[in-house]
Protein backbone atom coordinates (compact mmCIF):
# COMPACT_ATOMS: atom_id res chain seq x y z
CA UNK A 1 0.00 0.00 0.00
CA UNK A 2 2.78 2.38 0.95
CA UNK A 3 4.63 1.57 -2.27
CA UNK A 4 1.43 2.14 -4.26
CA UNK A 5 1.14 5.60 -2.76
CA UNK A 6 4.81 6.29 -3.48
CA UNK A 7 4.35 5.13 -7.05
CA UNK A 8 1.39 7.47 -7.42
CA UNK A 9 2.85 10.58 -5.79
CA UNK A 10 6.57 10.51 -6.63
CA UNK A 11 6.21 11.25 -10.37
CA UNK A 12 4.15 14.35 -9.60
CA UNK A 13 6.79 15.60 -7.14
CA UNK A 14 9.60 14.96 -9.64
CA UNK A 15 7.58 16.76 -12.31
CA UNK A 16 6.93 19.80 -10.12
CA UNK A 17 10.64 20.05 -9.30
CA UNK A 18 11.56 19.90 -12.99
CA UNK A 19 8.86 22.46 -13.80
CA UNK A 20 10.18 24.77 -11.07
CA UNK A 21 13.67 24.59 -12.58
CA UNK A 22 12.40 25.25 -16.10
CA UNK A 23 10.26 28.08 -14.71
CA UNK A 24 13.30 29.63 -12.99
CA UNK A 25 15.26 29.55 -16.23
CA UNK A 26 12.43 31.16 -18.22
CA UNK A 27 11.83 33.83 -15.58
CA UNK A 28 15.54 34.66 -15.40
CA UNK A 29 15.66 34.78 -19.21
CA UNK A 30 12.99 37.43 -18.99
CA UNK A 31 15.13 39.39 -16.54
CA UNK A 32 12.85 38.87 -13.53
CA UNK A 33 13.40 37.29 -10.16
CA UNK A 34 11.80 33.84 -9.73
CA UNK A 35 11.00 34.60 -6.09
CA UNK A 36 8.95 37.66 -7.03
CA UNK A 37 7.07 35.82 -9.79
CA UNK A 38 6.22 32.80 -7.67
CA UNK A 39 5.06 35.08 -4.85
CA UNK A 40 2.82 36.99 -7.26
CA UNK A 41 1.47 33.69 -8.53
CA UNK A 42 0.56 32.52 -5.03
CA UNK A 43 -0.90 35.87 -3.98
CA UNK A 44 -3.08 36.01 -7.10
CA UNK A 45 -4.48 32.54 -6.58
CA UNK A 46 -4.55 31.41 -2.95
CA UNK A 47 -3.78 34.80 -1.45
CA UNK A 48 -7.15 36.49 -1.93
CA UNK A 49 -10.75 35.38 -2.07
CA UNK A 50 -11.42 36.53 -5.63
CA UNK A 51 -8.36 34.75 -7.00
CA UNK A 52 -9.19 31.62 -5.04
CA UNK A 53 -12.75 31.75 -6.33
CA UNK A 54 -11.42 31.81 -9.87
CA UNK A 55 -9.19 28.85 -9.04
CA UNK A 56 -12.23 26.96 -7.75
CA UNK A 57 -14.18 27.84 -10.92
CA UNK A 58 -11.42 26.47 -13.13
CA UNK A 59 -10.98 23.46 -10.84
CA UNK A 60 -14.63 22.59 -11.42
CA UNK A 61 -14.38 22.26 -15.20
CA UNK A 62 -11.00 20.51 -15.01
CA UNK A 63 -12.37 18.01 -12.48
CA UNK A 64 -15.07 16.98 -14.95
CA UNK A 65 -12.75 16.68 -17.94
CA UNK A 66 -10.07 15.02 -15.79
CA UNK A 67 -12.54 12.45 -14.47
CA UNK A 68 -13.77 11.81 -18.02
CA UNK A 69 -10.27 11.07 -19.27
CA UNK A 70 -9.40 9.05 -16.16
CA UNK A 71 -12.47 6.84 -16.54
CA UNK A 72 -11.50 6.10 -20.14
CA UNK A 73 -7.93 5.27 -19.18
CA UNK A 74 -9.16 2.89 -16.47
CA UNK A 75 -10.80 0.92 -19.30
CA UNK A 76 -7.67 1.20 -21.43
CA UNK A 77 -9.22 3.85 -23.67
CA UNK A 78 -7.62 7.19 -24.37
CA UNK A 79 -10.38 9.78 -24.68
CA UNK A 80 -8.76 12.80 -26.35
CA UNK A 81 -12.24 14.13 -27.11
CA UNK A 82 -13.13 15.70 -23.75
CA UNK A 83 -12.75 19.12 -25.39
CA UNK A 84 -15.63 18.60 -27.82
CA UNK A 85 -17.67 16.54 -25.33
CA UNK A 86 -17.48 19.42 -22.86
CA UNK A 87 -18.59 21.84 -25.55
CA UNK A 88 -21.41 19.59 -26.76
CA UNK A 89 -22.68 19.10 -23.19
CA UNK A 90 -22.78 22.84 -22.60
CA UNK A 91 -24.41 23.38 -25.98
CA UNK A 92 -27.25 20.89 -25.55
CA UNK A 93 -27.90 22.16 -22.03
CA UNK A 94 -28.08 25.72 -23.34
CA UNK A 95 -30.36 24.65 -26.18
CA UNK A 96 -32.76 23.06 -23.70
CA UNK A 97 -32.42 26.05 -21.40
CA UNK A 98 -33.47 28.47 -24.14
CA UNK A 99 -36.74 26.54 -24.45
CA UNK A 100 -37.54 26.38 -20.72
CA UNK A 101 -39.80 29.14 -19.36
CA UNK A 102 -38.41 31.52 -16.75
CA UNK A 103 -39.27 30.98 -13.12
CA UNK A 104 -39.17 27.19 -13.01
CA UNK A 105 -37.73 26.03 -9.68
CA UNK A 106 -34.22 24.58 -9.68
CA UNK A 107 -35.53 21.25 -8.44
CA UNK A 108 -37.22 20.86 -11.83
CA UNK A 109 -34.61 22.43 -14.06
CA UNK A 110 -31.43 20.96 -12.60
CA UNK A 111 -32.23 17.32 -13.46
CA UNK A 112 -33.28 18.43 -16.95
CA UNK A 113 -30.02 20.30 -17.46
CA UNK A 114 -27.96 17.42 -16.09
CA UNK A 115 -29.63 15.01 -18.46
CA UNK A 116 -29.24 17.37 -21.43
CA UNK A 117 -25.54 17.99 -20.79
CA UNK A 118 -24.90 14.30 -20.19
CA UNK A 119 -26.65 13.36 -23.42
CA UNK A 120 -24.77 16.01 -25.40
CA UNK A 121 -21.37 14.86 -24.19
CA UNK A 122 -22.37 11.21 -24.03
CA UNK A 123 -23.35 10.97 -27.68
CA UNK A 124 -20.08 12.58 -28.77
CA UNK A 125 -18.24 10.08 -26.56
CA UNK A 126 -20.24 7.03 -27.57
CA UNK A 127 -19.44 7.40 -31.29
CA UNK A 128 -15.68 6.72 -30.98
CA UNK A 129 -16.45 4.02 -28.41
CA UNK A 130 -18.74 2.24 -30.82
CA UNK A 131 -16.26 2.70 -33.69
CA UNK A 132 -13.61 1.05 -31.54
CA UNK A 133 -15.85 -1.80 -30.44
CA UNK A 134 -17.35 -2.45 -33.86
CA UNK A 135 -14.51 -1.64 -36.31
CA UNK A 136 -11.37 -1.48 -34.17
CA UNK A 137 -10.83 2.17 -35.15
CA UNK A 138 -8.40 3.58 -32.61
CA UNK A 139 -10.14 6.01 -30.27
CA UNK A 140 -7.16 8.36 -30.00
CA UNK A 141 -7.44 9.27 -33.66
CA UNK A 142 -11.23 9.20 -33.89
CA UNK A 143 -11.67 11.41 -30.81
CA UNK A 144 -9.15 13.94 -32.16
CA UNK A 145 -10.92 13.98 -35.52
CA UNK A 146 -14.32 14.26 -33.81
CA UNK A 147 -13.07 17.25 -31.82
CA UNK A 148 -12.59 19.15 -35.05
CA UNK A 149 -15.87 17.95 -36.53
CA UNK A 150 -18.01 18.70 -33.48
CA UNK A 151 -16.41 22.07 -32.73
CA UNK A 152 -16.86 23.12 -36.37
CA UNK A 153 -20.50 22.00 -36.26
CA UNK A 154 -21.19 23.91 -33.03
CA UNK A 155 -19.42 26.95 -34.45
CA UNK A 156 -21.66 26.74 -37.51
CA UNK A 157 -24.85 26.37 -35.47
CA UNK A 158 -24.01 29.34 -33.27
CA UNK A 159 -22.62 31.58 -36.01
CA UNK A 160 -25.33 30.84 -38.54
CA UNK A 161 -28.43 30.35 -36.41
CA UNK A 162 -28.27 31.01 -32.69
CA UNK A 163 -26.04 34.00 -32.05
CA UNK A 164 -27.01 37.38 -30.73
CA UNK A 165 -25.93 39.80 -33.50
CA UNK A 166 -22.38 41.04 -33.03
CA UNK A 167 -21.40 38.23 -30.66
CA UNK A 168 -20.70 34.52 -30.82
CA UNK A 169 -23.03 33.56 -27.99
CA UNK A 170 -26.69 32.65 -27.67
CA UNK A 171 -29.36 34.67 -25.91
CA UNK A 172 -29.57 34.52 -22.14
CA UNK A 173 -31.13 31.46 -20.56
CA UNK A 174 -33.98 32.50 -18.27
CA UNK A 175 -34.55 29.33 -16.27
CA UNK A 176 -32.49 27.70 -13.56
CA UNK A 177 -29.37 29.85 -13.20
CA UNK A 178 -27.24 28.30 -10.45
CA UNK A 179 -26.06 30.08 -7.32
CA UNK A 180 -22.58 31.56 -7.19
CA UNK A 181 -20.40 30.82 -4.19
CA UNK A 182 -20.42 34.58 -3.53
CA UNK A 183 -24.13 34.22 -2.66
CA UNK A 184 -23.04 32.34 0.47
CA UNK A 185 -19.56 33.79 1.05
CA UNK A 186 -19.60 37.45 -0.01
CA UNK A 187 -15.78 37.56 -0.12
CA UNK A 188 -15.87 35.56 -3.37
CA UNK A 189 -17.60 38.55 -4.98
CA UNK A 190 -16.88 38.83 -8.70
CA UNK A 191 -15.45 35.35 -9.11
CA UNK A 192 -17.22 32.82 -11.27
CA UNK A 193 -17.10 29.96 -8.74
CA UNK A 194 -20.54 28.41 -8.36
CA UNK A 195 -22.33 25.39 -6.93
CA UNK A 196 -21.37 23.18 -9.88
CA UNK A 197 -18.16 22.76 -7.86
CA UNK A 198 -20.09 20.57 -5.41
CA UNK A 199 -21.54 18.62 -8.31
CA UNK A 200 -17.98 17.98 -9.52
CA UNK A 201 -16.95 16.67 -6.11
CA UNK A 202 -20.06 14.49 -5.96
CA UNK A 203 -19.32 13.04 -9.39
CA UNK A 204 -15.74 12.33 -8.27
CA UNK A 205 -17.01 10.48 -5.20
CA UNK A 206 -19.60 8.58 -7.24
CA UNK A 207 -16.98 7.59 -9.81
CA UNK A 208 -14.68 6.31 -7.06
CA UNK A 209 -17.51 4.17 -5.71
CA UNK A 210 -18.44 2.98 -9.19
CA UNK A 211 -14.89 2.04 -10.19
CA UNK A 212 -13.76 0.38 -6.98
CA UNK A 213 -16.94 -0.89 -5.35
CA UNK A 214 -19.19 -2.23 -8.10
CA UNK A 215 -19.10 -5.19 -10.46
CA UNK A 216 -19.19 -2.95 -13.53
CA UNK A 217 -16.29 -0.95 -12.16
CA UNK A 218 -14.33 -4.14 -11.67
CA UNK A 219 -15.09 -5.20 -15.23
CA UNK A 220 -13.94 -1.81 -16.49
CA UNK A 221 -10.66 -2.03 -14.64
CA UNK A 222 -10.14 -5.63 -15.74
CA UNK A 223 -10.73 -4.55 -19.36
CA UNK A 224 -8.18 -1.79 -18.95
CA UNK A 225 -5.51 -4.03 -17.50
CA UNK A 226 -5.82 -6.92 -19.93
CA UNK A 227 -8.75 -6.96 -22.38
CA UNK A 228 -8.10 -10.51 -23.61
CA UNK A 229 -8.08 -11.87 -20.09
CA UNK A 230 -11.22 -9.90 -19.23
CA UNK A 231 -12.99 -11.28 -22.31
CA UNK A 232 -11.91 -14.79 -21.29
CA UNK A 233 -13.26 -14.10 -17.82
CA UNK A 234 -16.70 -13.36 -19.25
CA UNK A 235 -16.56 -9.58 -19.68
CA UNK A 236 -18.09 -8.28 -22.92
CA UNK A 237 -15.16 -6.02 -23.75
CA UNK A 238 -16.78 -4.35 -26.77
CA UNK A 239 -19.80 -3.35 -24.69
CA UNK A 240 -17.54 -2.04 -21.92
CA UNK A 241 -15.67 0.08 -24.47
CA UNK A 242 -18.61 1.93 -25.90
CA UNK A 243 -20.40 2.30 -22.58
CA UNK A 244 -17.28 3.68 -20.91
CA UNK A 245 -16.75 6.14 -23.75
CA UNK A 246 -20.40 7.23 -23.51
CA UNK A 247 -20.13 7.71 -19.74
CA UNK A 248 -16.79 9.46 -20.11
CA UNK A 249 -18.30 11.84 -22.65
CA UNK A 250 -21.32 12.38 -20.39
CA UNK A 251 -19.09 13.36 -17.47
CA UNK A 252 -17.16 15.82 -19.64
CA UNK A 253 -20.48 17.12 -21.00
CA UNK A 254 -21.90 17.83 -17.54
CA UNK A 255 -18.79 19.97 -17.00
CA UNK A 256 -20.32 22.36 -19.53
CA UNK A 257 -22.88 23.38 -16.89
CA UNK A 258 -20.12 25.18 -14.97
CA UNK A 259 -19.80 27.78 -17.72
CA UNK A 260 -23.30 27.77 -19.16
CA UNK A 261 -25.47 27.66 -16.02
CA UNK A 262 -23.04 28.64 -13.28
CA UNK A 263 -21.26 31.53 -14.94
CA UNK A 264 -22.54 33.14 -18.15
CA UNK A 265 -26.11 31.83 -18.53
CA UNK A 266 -25.58 31.43 -22.27
CA UNK A 267 -23.61 29.18 -24.61
CA UNK A 268 -20.58 30.87 -26.14
CA UNK A 269 -18.63 29.46 -29.07
CA UNK A 270 -15.29 27.89 -28.08
CA UNK A 271 -15.95 28.31 -24.35
CA UNK A 272 -14.09 25.06 -23.64
CA UNK A 273 -10.85 26.81 -24.72
CA UNK A 274 -8.51 23.91 -23.98
CA UNK A 275 -10.08 22.62 -20.73
CA UNK A 276 -10.62 19.26 -22.40
CA UNK A 277 -6.94 18.92 -23.29
CA UNK A 278 -5.80 20.06 -19.86
CA UNK A 279 -8.18 17.36 -18.57
CA UNK A 280 -5.80 14.82 -20.09
CA UNK A 281 -2.99 16.33 -18.04
CA UNK A 282 -5.20 16.30 -14.95
CA UNK A 283 -5.98 12.61 -15.38
CA UNK A 284 -2.33 11.69 -15.99
CA UNK A 285 -0.99 13.69 -13.04
CA UNK A 286 -3.90 12.48 -10.86
CA UNK A 287 -2.97 8.92 -11.86
CA UNK A 288 -6.55 8.15 -12.96
CA UNK A 289 -7.79 8.11 -9.38
CA UNK A 290 -10.77 10.37 -8.54
CA UNK A 291 -9.01 11.85 -5.50
CA UNK A 292 -5.86 12.42 -7.51
CA UNK A 293 -7.90 13.99 -10.29
CA UNK A 294 -9.49 16.55 -7.94
CA UNK A 295 -6.08 17.47 -6.51
CA UNK A 296 -4.50 17.66 -9.97
CA UNK A 297 -7.41 19.81 -11.19
CA UNK A 298 -6.71 22.18 -8.30
CA UNK A 299 -3.03 22.27 -9.26
CA UNK A 300 -3.67 23.00 -12.94
CA UNK A 301 -6.38 25.54 -12.10
CA UNK A 302 -3.95 27.30 -9.79
CA UNK A 303 -1.33 27.40 -12.52
CA UNK A 304 -3.75 28.71 -15.10
CA UNK A 305 -5.14 31.45 -12.82
CA UNK A 306 -1.58 32.15 -11.65
CA UNK A 307 -0.59 32.89 -15.23
CA UNK A 308 -3.00 35.83 -15.22
CA UNK A 309 -1.58 37.03 -11.91
CA UNK A 310 1.99 37.20 -13.20
CA UNK A 311 1.23 38.43 -16.72
CA UNK A 312 2.36 41.97 -15.93
CA UNK A 313 5.86 40.71 -15.08
CA UNK A 314 6.39 37.67 -17.33
CA UNK A 315 4.18 36.47 -20.22
CA UNK A 316 1.33 34.33 -18.93
CA UNK A 317 2.24 31.67 -21.50
CA UNK A 318 5.02 30.65 -19.13
CA UNK A 319 2.29 28.71 -17.36
CA UNK A 320 1.33 26.84 -20.54
CA UNK A 321 4.97 25.86 -20.92
CA UNK A 322 5.19 24.69 -17.30
CA UNK A 323 1.94 22.72 -17.58
CA UNK A 324 3.35 20.93 -20.61
CA UNK A 325 6.62 20.28 -18.77
CA UNK A 326 4.66 18.76 -15.88
CA UNK A 327 2.77 16.46 -18.27
CA UNK A 328 5.90 15.29 -20.08
CA UNK A 329 7.83 14.84 -16.83
CA UNK A 330 5.05 12.84 -15.18
CA UNK A 331 4.58 10.67 -18.28
CA UNK A 332 8.34 10.07 -18.47
CA UNK A 333 8.89 9.41 -14.77
CA UNK A 334 5.97 7.03 -14.15
CA UNK A 335 7.66 3.97 -15.73
CA UNK A 336 11.02 5.02 -14.26
CA UNK A 337 9.70 5.43 -10.70
CA UNK A 338 7.91 2.10 -10.93
CA UNK A 339 11.08 0.37 -12.11
CA UNK A 340 13.25 1.87 -9.36
CA UNK A 341 10.70 1.19 -6.58
CA UNK A 342 10.11 -2.40 -7.66
CA UNK A 343 13.84 -3.10 -7.91
CA UNK A 344 14.27 -1.65 -4.41
CA UNK A 345 11.43 -3.84 -3.16
CA UNK A 346 13.03 -7.06 -4.36
CA UNK A 347 16.33 -6.49 -2.63
Amino acid at each position, binding site marked *: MKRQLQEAVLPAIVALLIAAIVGDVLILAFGQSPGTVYRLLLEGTWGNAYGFGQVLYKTTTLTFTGLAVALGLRAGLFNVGAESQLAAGGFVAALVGLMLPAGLPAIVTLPVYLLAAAIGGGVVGAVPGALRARFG*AHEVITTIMLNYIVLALLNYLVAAHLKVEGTLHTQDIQAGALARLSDFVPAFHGSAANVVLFLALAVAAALWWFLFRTKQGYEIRATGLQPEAAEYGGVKVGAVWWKVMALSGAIAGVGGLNFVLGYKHYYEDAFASGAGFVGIAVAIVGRNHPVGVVLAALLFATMSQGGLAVNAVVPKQIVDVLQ*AVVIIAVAASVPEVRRVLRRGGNR
Partner: protein
Amino acid sequence: MILFAFLAQTLRIAIPYLFAASGGVVSERSGLVALGLEGYMLGGAFCGAIASYYSGNPWIGLLGAVAGGVAIALLYAVAAIRFRADQVVVGIAINLLIIGATRFFLRLFFHSSANSPRVSGFGDERVGSGLVALAGNPLIWLGVLAVAGVAWMLYRTPFGLRLRATGEHPAAAVSVGIPVDRVRYLAAALSGGLAALGGAYLSLDQHQFSAEMTAGRGFIALAATIFGRWDPFRAALACLLFAAAETLQIQLQGTQVVPSQFVEMIPFALTIVALAGVVGRAVPPAALGKVAE
Protein backbone atom coordinates in the same frame (compact mmCIF):
# COMPACT_ATOMS: atom_id res chain seq x y z
CA MET B 1 -6.99 30.24 -66.53
CA ILE B 2 -9.36 29.60 -63.65
CA LEU B 3 -8.12 26.03 -63.60
CA PHE B 4 -4.51 27.22 -63.30
CA ALA B 5 -5.42 29.54 -60.46
CA PHE B 6 -7.22 26.68 -58.77
CA LEU B 7 -4.24 24.35 -59.16
CA ALA B 8 -1.80 26.99 -57.97
CA GLN B 9 -3.81 27.70 -54.86
CA THR B 10 -4.30 24.00 -54.14
CA LEU B 11 -0.56 23.43 -54.35
CA ARG B 12 0.17 26.42 -52.12
CA ILE B 13 -2.16 25.09 -49.47
CA ALA B 14 -0.90 21.51 -49.89
CA ILE B 15 2.83 22.19 -49.46
CA PRO B 16 2.91 22.41 -45.66
CA TYR B 17 0.71 19.29 -45.53
CA LEU B 18 3.09 17.43 -47.88
CA PHE B 19 6.08 18.13 -45.64
CA ALA B 20 4.30 17.30 -42.40
CA ALA B 21 2.51 14.22 -43.72
CA SER B 22 5.83 12.88 -45.08
CA GLY B 23 7.20 13.34 -41.59
CA GLY B 24 4.11 11.68 -40.16
CA VAL B 25 4.60 8.64 -42.39
CA VAL B 26 8.25 8.28 -41.37
CA SER B 27 7.44 8.59 -37.66
CA GLU B 28 4.47 6.25 -37.61
CA ARG B 29 6.07 3.61 -39.83
CA SER B 30 8.85 3.40 -37.23
CA GLY B 31 6.24 2.85 -34.49
CA LEU B 32 6.23 6.37 -33.05
CA VAL B 33 2.78 8.01 -32.93
CA ALA B 34 3.00 11.33 -34.78
CA LEU B 35 0.71 13.40 -32.56
CA GLY B 36 3.36 16.09 -32.23
CA LEU B 37 3.31 17.14 -35.91
CA GLU B 38 1.46 20.34 -35.04
CA GLY B 39 4.15 21.22 -32.51
CA TYR B 40 6.99 20.45 -34.93
CA MET B 41 5.35 22.64 -37.58
CA LEU B 42 4.75 25.53 -35.21
CA GLY B 43 8.27 25.25 -33.80
CA GLY B 44 9.64 25.16 -37.34
CA ALA B 45 7.64 28.21 -38.35
CA PHE B 46 8.97 30.09 -35.32
CA CYS B 47 12.62 29.03 -35.56
CA GLY B 48 12.55 29.63 -39.30
CA ALA B 49 11.30 33.17 -38.79
CA ILE B 50 13.84 33.86 -36.02
CA ALA B 51 16.78 32.53 -38.02
CA SER B 52 15.70 34.41 -41.11
CA TYR B 53 15.18 37.60 -39.08
CA TYR B 54 18.64 37.60 -37.55
CA SER B 55 20.49 36.42 -40.68
CA GLY B 56 18.41 38.20 -43.30
CA ASN B 57 18.64 35.02 -45.36
CA PRO B 58 15.66 32.71 -45.78
CA TRP B 59 17.93 29.72 -46.46
CA ILE B 60 19.45 30.18 -43.00
CA GLY B 61 15.81 30.39 -41.87
CA LEU B 62 15.20 26.94 -43.29
CA LEU B 63 18.24 25.58 -41.46
CA GLY B 64 16.96 27.13 -38.24
CA ALA B 65 13.53 25.61 -38.80
CA VAL B 66 14.99 22.14 -39.33
CA ALA B 67 17.19 22.49 -36.25
CA GLY B 68 14.18 23.54 -34.17
CA GLY B 69 11.94 20.77 -35.48
CA VAL B 70 14.61 18.12 -34.93
CA ALA B 71 15.23 19.34 -31.38
CA ILE B 72 11.53 19.23 -30.49
CA ALA B 73 11.10 15.79 -32.05
CA LEU B 74 14.12 14.48 -30.15
CA LEU B 75 12.63 15.75 -26.90
CA TYR B 76 9.54 13.68 -27.75
CA ALA B 77 11.68 10.70 -28.74
CA VAL B 78 13.75 10.77 -25.54
CA ALA B 79 10.58 10.78 -23.42
CA ALA B 80 8.95 8.04 -25.52
CA ILE B 81 11.99 5.79 -26.07
CA ARG B 82 14.45 6.33 -23.23
CA PHE B 83 11.81 6.91 -20.55
CA ARG B 84 9.04 4.78 -22.13
CA ALA B 85 6.50 7.54 -21.59
CA ASP B 86 3.06 7.14 -23.14
CA GLN B 87 3.43 8.43 -26.70
CA VAL B 88 -0.08 9.88 -26.89
CA VAL B 89 0.36 11.86 -23.68
CA VAL B 90 3.76 13.24 -24.63
CA GLY B 91 2.65 13.98 -28.19
CA ILE B 92 -0.26 16.09 -26.97
CA ALA B 93 1.95 17.78 -24.37
CA ILE B 94 4.52 18.66 -27.06
CA ASN B 95 1.85 20.63 -28.91
CA LEU B 96 0.81 22.51 -25.75
CA LEU B 97 4.47 23.14 -24.97
CA ILE B 98 5.25 24.67 -28.35
CA ILE B 99 2.11 26.82 -28.46
CA GLY B 100 3.09 28.28 -25.08
CA ALA B 101 6.82 28.47 -25.77
CA THR B 102 6.50 30.25 -29.13
CA ARG B 103 4.25 32.91 -27.56
CA PHE B 104 6.63 33.26 -24.60
CA PHE B 105 9.70 33.70 -26.81
CA LEU B 106 7.77 35.98 -29.14
CA ARG B 107 7.42 38.38 -26.22
CA LEU B 108 11.00 37.78 -25.11
CA PHE B 109 12.47 38.53 -28.54
CA PHE B 110 10.02 41.02 -30.02
CA HIS B 111 7.90 42.32 -27.11
CA SER B 112 4.75 41.14 -28.86
CA SER B 113 2.58 38.16 -28.04
CA ALA B 114 1.05 38.06 -31.51
CA ASN B 115 3.56 38.66 -34.33
CA SER B 116 7.22 38.75 -35.26
CA PRO B 117 8.51 41.69 -37.29
CA ARG B 118 8.84 41.23 -41.04
CA VAL B 119 11.45 38.63 -41.98
CA SER B 120 12.95 37.87 -45.35
CA GLY B 121 11.28 34.95 -47.09
CA PHE B 122 11.00 33.31 -50.45
CA GLY B 123 8.98 34.48 -53.39
CA ASP B 124 8.76 37.88 -54.97
CA GLU B 125 5.46 39.50 -54.11
CA ARG B 126 5.57 41.60 -57.31
CA VAL B 127 5.02 38.45 -59.38
CA GLY B 128 1.68 37.84 -57.67
CA SER B 129 0.44 34.53 -56.45
CA GLY B 130 -0.04 32.56 -59.68
CA LEU B 131 1.83 29.53 -60.94
CA VAL B 132 4.87 31.61 -61.96
CA ALA B 133 5.39 32.95 -58.46
CA LEU B 134 4.79 29.48 -57.11
CA ALA B 135 7.50 27.94 -59.30
CA GLY B 136 9.95 30.55 -57.98
CA ASN B 137 9.51 29.33 -54.42
CA PRO B 138 12.12 26.65 -53.72
CA LEU B 139 9.99 25.16 -50.93
CA ILE B 140 7.44 23.99 -53.51
CA TRP B 141 10.10 21.83 -55.13
CA LEU B 142 11.47 20.74 -51.76
CA GLY B 143 7.97 19.65 -50.73
CA VAL B 144 7.54 17.47 -53.81
CA LEU B 145 11.05 16.15 -53.27
CA ALA B 146 10.24 15.31 -49.64
CA VAL B 147 7.44 12.99 -50.69
CA ALA B 148 9.56 11.22 -53.31
CA GLY B 149 12.56 11.13 -51.00
CA VAL B 150 10.63 9.59 -48.14
CA ALA B 151 9.10 7.00 -50.47
CA TRP B 152 12.54 6.12 -51.87
CA MET B 153 14.05 5.94 -48.38
CA LEU B 154 11.20 3.81 -47.05
CA TYR B 155 10.97 1.27 -49.89
CA ARG B 156 14.38 1.31 -51.58
CA THR B 157 17.03 1.66 -48.89
CA PRO B 158 18.27 -0.70 -46.13
CA PHE B 159 17.44 1.99 -43.57
CA GLY B 160 13.85 2.12 -44.81
CA LEU B 161 13.53 -1.63 -44.49
CA ARG B 162 14.85 -1.45 -40.92
CA LEU B 163 12.50 1.40 -40.13
CA ARG B 164 9.48 -0.55 -41.35
CA ALA B 165 10.59 -3.68 -39.48
CA THR B 166 10.94 -1.57 -36.33
CA GLY B 167 7.39 -0.32 -36.70
CA GLU B 168 5.85 -3.69 -37.48
CA HIS B 169 7.67 -6.06 -35.16
CA PRO B 170 10.40 -4.53 -33.00
CA ALA B 171 11.22 -7.82 -31.25
CA ALA B 172 11.92 -9.50 -34.58
CA ALA B 173 13.90 -6.47 -35.70
CA VAL B 174 16.08 -6.67 -32.60
CA SER B 175 16.66 -10.38 -33.16
CA VAL B 176 18.22 -9.70 -36.57
CA GLY B 177 20.47 -7.04 -35.14
CA ILE B 178 18.57 -3.85 -35.98
CA PRO B 179 19.25 -1.11 -33.40
CA VAL B 180 15.54 -0.42 -32.88
CA ASP B 181 15.91 2.54 -30.55
CA ARG B 182 18.45 4.25 -32.80
CA VAL B 183 16.19 3.74 -35.84
CA ARG B 184 13.32 5.36 -33.95
CA TYR B 185 15.44 8.32 -32.85
CA LEU B 186 16.45 8.87 -36.48
CA ALA B 187 12.84 8.53 -37.63
CA ALA B 188 11.73 11.06 -35.02
CA ALA B 189 14.45 13.53 -36.04
CA LEU B 190 13.55 13.13 -39.70
CA SER B 191 9.84 13.64 -39.04
CA GLY B 192 10.58 16.71 -36.91
CA GLY B 193 12.79 18.23 -39.60
CA LEU B 194 10.28 17.56 -42.37
CA ALA B 195 7.28 18.91 -40.48
CA ALA B 196 9.32 21.96 -39.45
CA LEU B 197 9.97 22.72 -43.14
CA GLY B 198 6.21 22.73 -43.61
CA GLY B 199 5.92 25.24 -40.79
CA ALA B 200 8.77 27.34 -42.18
CA TYR B 201 6.94 27.45 -45.51
CA LEU B 202 4.11 29.25 -43.72
CA SER B 203 6.19 31.83 -41.87
CA LEU B 204 8.60 32.50 -44.74
CA ASP B 205 5.76 32.73 -47.26
CA GLN B 206 4.00 35.30 -45.09
CA HIS B 207 7.33 36.94 -44.18
CA GLN B 208 6.27 36.84 -40.56
CA PHE B 209 5.61 34.48 -37.68
CA SER B 210 2.29 34.90 -35.94
CA ALA B 211 1.14 33.03 -32.85
CA GLU B 212 -0.50 29.65 -33.50
CA MET B 213 -0.17 30.25 -37.24
CA THR B 214 -0.21 26.51 -38.03
CA ALA B 215 -3.85 26.47 -36.82
CA GLY B 216 -4.33 22.70 -36.75
CA ARG B 217 -2.47 21.95 -40.00
CA GLY B 218 -0.37 19.35 -38.17
CA PHE B 219 -3.54 17.44 -37.40
CA ILE B 220 -4.72 17.69 -40.99
CA ALA B 221 -1.33 16.24 -41.97
CA LEU B 222 -1.84 13.46 -39.42
CA ALA B 223 -5.25 12.83 -40.96
CA ALA B 224 -3.57 12.64 -44.39
CA THR B 225 -1.00 10.19 -43.02
CA ILE B 226 -3.76 7.89 -41.81
CA PHE B 227 -6.13 8.46 -44.74
CA GLY B 228 -3.13 7.71 -46.99
CA ARG B 229 -2.67 4.45 -45.10
CA TRP B 230 0.88 5.29 -43.98
CA ASP B 231 2.18 5.34 -47.57
CA PRO B 232 4.04 8.49 -48.72
CA PHE B 233 2.37 8.74 -52.14
CA ARG B 234 -1.14 8.02 -50.92
CA ALA B 235 -0.60 10.47 -48.05
CA ALA B 236 0.51 13.08 -50.60
CA LEU B 237 -2.65 12.45 -52.59
CA ALA B 238 -4.66 12.88 -49.41
CA CYS B 239 -2.88 16.20 -48.80
CA LEU B 240 -3.79 17.36 -52.31
CA LEU B 241 -7.38 16.25 -51.84
CA PHE B 242 -7.72 18.12 -48.55
CA ALA B 243 -6.04 21.19 -50.05
CA ALA B 244 -8.34 21.08 -53.08
CA ALA B 245 -11.37 21.04 -50.78
CA GLU B 246 -10.02 24.09 -48.94
CA THR B 247 -9.35 25.85 -52.23
CA LEU B 248 -12.85 25.14 -53.42
CA GLN B 249 -14.22 26.56 -50.21
CA ILE B 250 -12.14 29.74 -50.59
CA GLN B 251 -13.28 30.11 -54.22
CA LEU B 252 -16.90 29.61 -53.23
CA GLN B 253 -16.70 32.04 -50.33
CA GLY B 254 -19.57 34.46 -50.40
CA THR B 255 -21.75 32.21 -52.49
CA GLN B 256 -22.98 30.36 -49.38
CA VAL B 257 -23.27 27.04 -51.23
CA VAL B 258 -21.66 25.09 -48.43
CA PRO B 259 -20.82 26.69 -45.07
CA SER B 260 -17.05 26.81 -44.56
CA GLN B 261 -17.32 24.81 -41.35
CA PHE B 262 -18.50 21.78 -43.29
CA VAL B 263 -15.53 22.00 -45.64
CA GLU B 264 -13.25 22.16 -42.59
CA MET B 265 -14.67 18.82 -41.45
CA ILE B 266 -13.77 16.95 -44.64
CA PRO B 267 -10.25 15.70 -43.75
CA PHE B 268 -11.35 14.58 -40.31
CA ALA B 269 -14.57 12.90 -41.43
CA LEU B 270 -12.76 11.05 -44.24
CA THR B 271 -10.14 9.83 -41.77
CA ILE B 272 -12.78 8.40 -39.45
CA VAL B 273 -14.43 6.69 -42.41
CA ALA B 274 -11.06 5.26 -43.47
CA LEU B 275 -10.34 3.97 -39.96
CA ALA B 276 -13.78 2.42 -39.66
CA GLY B 277 -13.00 0.56 -42.86
CA VAL B 278 -16.08 1.32 -44.89
CA VAL B 279 -14.04 1.12 -48.09
CA GLY B 280 -11.00 -0.99 -47.25
CA ARG B 281 -9.84 -0.47 -43.71
CA ALA B 282 -6.70 1.52 -42.91
CA VAL B 283 -4.50 -0.74 -40.79
CA PRO B 284 -1.75 1.02 -38.82
CA PRO B 285 1.80 -0.33 -38.34
CA ALA B 286 1.52 -3.21 -35.87
CA ALA B 287 3.84 -1.80 -33.22
CA LEU B 288 2.58 1.80 -33.45
CA GLY B 289 2.68 3.42 -30.04
CA LYS B 290 4.23 0.41 -28.35
CA VAL B 291 7.45 0.38 -26.36
CA ALA B 292 10.19 -1.70 -27.97
CA GLU B 293 11.28 -4.20 -25.32
